[in-house]
């Protein structure tokens, strides 16, 4: 008796709203960053120089490429090329994992130097340095969590595509998931210069 409810435009509308809430979530952290930077410009630049820019650069490249591959996955699905879609989804998830592994090594090195939230080493540093690293770990940690969530979503949608539940006629789910992944990428595009480059 139930009539099928389907509204692709509505689904996209809802997704954009949700992405907006994610932006606001991170905006609180940008606010904190701005305030701390205004208060401790020198400490911030000192601390920033202690980050390893190579890790950050590699991760930027990895994430940008993954955004490309997921965008291509959507187009491939629209053209009905399921197999290619699956390969491109797989590539995206793989790149997401590379991002996380890279992050793991970066953080291990920093933790090895005694730099982590609440460490004695940080407590002895100038207040701005501690603020920088606390924000760094919190913000990038939250971003990393979003990478995990995004990767999981893509995996689930890929499985649904393989099972024929997401097809060239009903691709909104993949499209929305891709939008989410683009957001994760977009936020990184802001985090990378703020923490690694401009100071």
């Amino acid at each position, binding site marked *: 008796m139930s009539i099928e409810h389907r509204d692709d435009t509505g689904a996209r509308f809802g997704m954009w709203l*949700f992405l907006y809430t994610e932006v606001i979530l991170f905006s609180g952290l940008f606010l904190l960053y701005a305030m701390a930077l205004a208060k401790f410009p020198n400490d911030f630049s000192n601390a920033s120089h202690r980050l390893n820019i190579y890790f950050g650069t590699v991760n930027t490249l990895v994430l940008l490429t993954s955004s490309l591959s997921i965008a291509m996955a959507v187009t491939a699905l629209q053209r009905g090329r399921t197999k290619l879609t699956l390969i491109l989804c797989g590539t995206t998830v793989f790149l997401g994992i590379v991002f996380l592994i890279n992050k793991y090594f970066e953080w291990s090195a920093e933790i090895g130097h005694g730099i982590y939230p609440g460490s004695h080493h940080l407590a002895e540093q100038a207040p701005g340095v501690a603020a920088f690293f606390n924000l760094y770990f919190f913000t990038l940690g939250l971003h990393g969590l979003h990478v995990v969530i995004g990767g999981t979503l893509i995996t689930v949608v890929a499985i649904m595509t393989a099972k024929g539940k997401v097809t060239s006629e009903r691709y909104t789910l993949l499209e929305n998931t891709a939008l989410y992944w683009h957001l994760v990428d977009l936020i990184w595009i802001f985090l990378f210069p703020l923490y690694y480059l401009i100071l």
Partner: protein
Amino acid sequence: MSETNSSYSGFWQQGQRRGILGWLLSTDHKRIGIMYLCCVTTMFIVGACLGLALRLELIAPGPTVMSAQTYNATFTVHGVIMIFLFIIPSIPASFGNLLMPIMIGARDVSFPKVNLISWYCYIIGAVLAILSIFTGTGAPDTGWTFYVPFSTQTTTNIDLAVMAAFMLGFSSILTGLNFLTTIHRLRAKGMTWGRLPLFVWTLYATAWVQVLATPMIGITLLLIVFERVFGAGLFDAARGGDPILYQHMFWIYSHPAVYIMILPGMGVISEVIPVFARKPLFGYWAMALSSLAIAFAGSLVWGHHMFASGMSDMAILIFSFLTFIVAIPSAIKVFNWVSTLYKGSIQLAPPMLYALSFIFLFSIGGLGGLVLGAAASDIHLTDTMFVVGHFHYVMFGGTGFAFFAALHYWLPKFFGRMYNHKRAVIAWALMFVGFNFTYMPMQVLGVMGMPRRYYDYLPQFTTLNQVSTVGSWVMALGLLVMFVNLWKGIRSGTPVGPNPWGGATLEWQIPSPPPIENFGEEDPVVTHGPYDFKGVVADEY
């Protein structure tokens, strides 16, 4: 549909699954609405008992029934429950879910599964909040605002309480997102923006606030956990952080949140008043747009909570000015309700009594808000009992009474039975009188200088505190009579037809209780406005 007339029970009966799973896994907006209704009502009762305990402690100076620490924990848990578990979800999540899709002529919300997830987020939040009282090293004692530095240092169970609030925020965001999409996409044919019932308009404005503001509290709460677990010190002045920044981030959400609380209440009142004055609502577009104006202007005024915490004079001036601006759309609403009543043939049925007392109590609370919005008087009144009186007038006298109005107005629709009117009026009278005796003395005490969140006070405050405590008993009696009456009505009241009040909005054109897909096979086509009472007659019951 095969039911005969005598055994008809609408969405209560139909459904894919039987029994309890038919509820817990249901994506029907009406079932989810009923589940919310049960939960928020339960939380209200728990919170009210804590409030009564607070009042009991304040019946005499000195320790009376609890220790100072218990008092701190009690007002914190009372506040957390009332704010996050009762008043924010109360009307939008329960009555919004029950009614909004029907009112716009849709079969369900845009994302029924997300709707159910949102309910589960609410449940997780509720469970965490309750666990935080009993586990760890004691119930949270920071007040519902979780102000730093105390919230990052106290050894009580803040983490769980904060995570509870986080989950509840998530639930609120999902509901808002769902409502926005539904109102944009699923209106029936002929349901133009100019024919939306005002309750839907207020839900629409509320949903924007939910979506835009709630993530801010989310990140703020996560930061508290981060501070507590890692000792990061982002809000700790000694370590380069800034405690005032916490207050900004908290109120950037929490001030707009008071509009999440009050706007849907105003929507309910805008539905009830025209029906019982038998007149179209005065100034439809002014009412619709003032909801958006309140939501917009209300997002700019958070600073008025911090006049005393250290702000530049310029900032104080600006926030004070903006606060006064919000009063304009609120006043438009009050004046339009009054204009609707003018020369109406007013019928004092129970929902109407609650609606009228809403106008009265909300006006007192709102004017008190102006007193607090003016920096000079605020410096004197900040953190006194006046603030407690003010926000109870607005939240309880406002939204709480609107919630009761909604219960009395729409329960017959969803249960198909009517409660006893005489008892409803008695309950209302007890509550209205008790309410004013409870909270008016608090405002006076505040002006006299009694601080809030203190469990002891100077002897000169004794009489008014006693009046207030006795008032709270009268109010509690009223609440008891009301809930018993409603419960009995639901179980065994007189059956009612589709339209017991003579309303003109869509929900009154379908059977009581509504069938599962609301309108059967044919989607409705709307041909007239929501307050066009020509030819609408109330059913006998």
